[in-house]
């Protein structure tokens, strides 16, 4: 009796969530199995798995998948490693600590589009960018980052965007580290490095898992930075899955293939989830 009342009261929100998820998913599945090109309206006949075949055999497919994974892993490694080091560095009190913390966290408040514009026009521009000025004043040829190293450029932008998130999580976690444990280790003869290696890193295992999981969700779908800066090019050098799907749907007007690509992205996200999140997720159960 009591249980059925609970279920009854829970039902509206659960049904709402379900509908919220089911409708877009089933529409995507439906679109992926029909011919649906915006240039040929009305010819929406069932085509089976043809859209999937088109998407997978697209010349952009293999680079897009590998770029997605390279971007994901590089940004994860950069933000976690730099994040742990910087947070450990600013954990001890020093003069101006508050300002340094705000500065370190502020890139997170800048929207991805603006972030990409800043990097594109102020930092990486081969004529009046700061990187160009630095290499020129050192006597080197300025590098056109966006056309010479498009994927690296995107990785730099996205890392700059997400590093503050990692720092925010790690700094908070470090503050909850027990000082008596550190003192005990000190009495046991541990140096600063030993304490960092044997106490701080294990203490950060769980926050690292959280950062990796949350960043994975967002980094699989990086779009604005690519759209604003490199436009996926040159060629497919900085095209990732999200950008390829956009390309199919809104540049080639093929909603059917784009839907098939969307479903493939869901599949990829699940594969990544199985390998990556399971690897770090065991830290969450401790």
């Amino acid at each position, binding site marked *: 009796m009591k249980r059925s009342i609970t279920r009854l009261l829970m039902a509206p929100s659960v049904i709402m969530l379900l509908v919220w998820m089911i409708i877009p998913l089933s529409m995507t599945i439906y679109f992926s199995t029909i011919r649906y090109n915006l240039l040929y309206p009305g010819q929406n006949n069932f085509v089976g798995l043809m859209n999937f075949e088109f998407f997978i055999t697209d010349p952009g497919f293999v680079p897009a998948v590998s770029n997605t994974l390279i971007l994901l892993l590089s940004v994860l490694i950069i933000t976690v490693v730099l994040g742990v080091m910087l947070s450990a560095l600013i954990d001890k009190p020093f003069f101006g600590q508050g300002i340094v913390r705000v500065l370190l966290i502020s890139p997170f408040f800048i929207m991805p589009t603006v972030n990409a514009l800043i990097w594109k026009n102020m930092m990486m521009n081969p004529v009046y960018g700061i990187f160009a000025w630095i290499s020129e004043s050192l006597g080197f040829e300025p590098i056109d980052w966006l056309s010479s190293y498009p994927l690296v450029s995107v990785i730099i932008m996205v890392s700059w965007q997400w590093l503050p998130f990692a720092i925010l999580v790690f700094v908070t976690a470090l503050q909850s580290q*027990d000082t*008596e*444990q550190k*003192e*005990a*280790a*000190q*009495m*046991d*003869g*541990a*140096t600063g490095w*030993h304490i960092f290696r*044997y*106490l701080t890193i*294990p*203490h950060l*295992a769980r926050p690292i898992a959280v950062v990796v999981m949350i960043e994975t969700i967002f980094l699989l779908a990086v779009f604005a930075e690519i759209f604003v800066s490199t436009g996926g090019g040159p060629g497919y050098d900085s095209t990732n899955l999200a950008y390829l799907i956009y390309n199919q749907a809104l540049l080639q007007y093929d909603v059917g293939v784009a839907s098939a690509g969307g479903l493939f992205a869901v599949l990829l996200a699940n594969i990544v989830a199985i390998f990556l999140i399971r690897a770090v997720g065991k830290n969450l159960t*401790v």
Partner: protein
Amino acid sequence: MSYLTITDLQKHYENYHALRGINLSISEGEFVVFVGPSGCGKSTLLRTIAGLESSTGGSIELDGRDITEVASSKRDLAMVFQSYALYPHMTVADNLSFALRLAKVSDAEIKEKVRSVSASLQLDALLERKPKELSGGQRQRVAIGRAIVRQPKVFLFDEPLSNLDAALRVQMRLELARLHKKLGTTMIYVTHDQVEAMTLADRVVILNAGQIEQVGTPLELYRQPNSRFVAEFIGTPKMNLIPANRILRNEDTLSIDIFGQQISFPANRLKGPLPDSVVIGIRPEHMSLVETDGDLTGRIELVEHLGSEAYAHLQLSSDQTIIIKAPARTELKDGQEVCIKIDTSELILFNENDRVISVIPEEA
């Protein structure tokens, strides 16, 4: 021969003078307990000895070596913390061997040491567990084991039993006493619990407001306190303190007036000049209730029955209340008028500066 010598140790915080010139020498193998009310500096003193706080003056010498400026990792001391401070992600075995592994001791030796320590503390069955899978008492034993396994020169304990429940505390207290007997290592122990201090210590150091109030064996402190602070701090229930104004000196006895009733006190037990007013101190067990011929009279306010004994709270003629220890099966009734007999040989006199001005006679 002093093993650990502390000379004029000072500790200033930004606007707080925590240690005001501590002088103390501890000999090898001694069990010394620092005790005092909260904020008296006992933990600061221990942490300064450990090197976790830097001193702002004075020196600490251990086994002939000046360690005042030495890093805590190089002092050859081991500390047991109040929160145990076990490494949460390491097993018990790893916790025990952490210091040895850092010191690059050989694997075989580590194994042997961990084995012998865990056997002596009954941790054998727990070696593969993580700290959070242990009970409070087991965690405590791991923390002690982690200190023992290094064989340090001195053990430092920072209120190690205060997180345990009452029954376990008594048991661990016994184990610590046994451990000290077995190892014979110098131990310094901080507590605010005077029962722990009295039962464990070879010598007790009583601290008050950053200074040493008195150092002595537990019984010395109990019988011959230097000051009113020590007298009040040691002993449960507290020593009774009764102000007395008029004191008459005739030949070899002093006659002390307590609310109009006279008690006499041998004059040869007085040291120093006789002040105008004194406070007399007498412990609950040094007074008894008698039918007639008492030194004082009072009215019973309340009787606390503890089973093995009873404590009677009495009101004297003014608002002054005192506590007297009575036999277990006392027939005392609330509101009853009683006579009190004082064992004057145990009487202590304090002057207006709260210093003791009497001596306790030698035991016959």
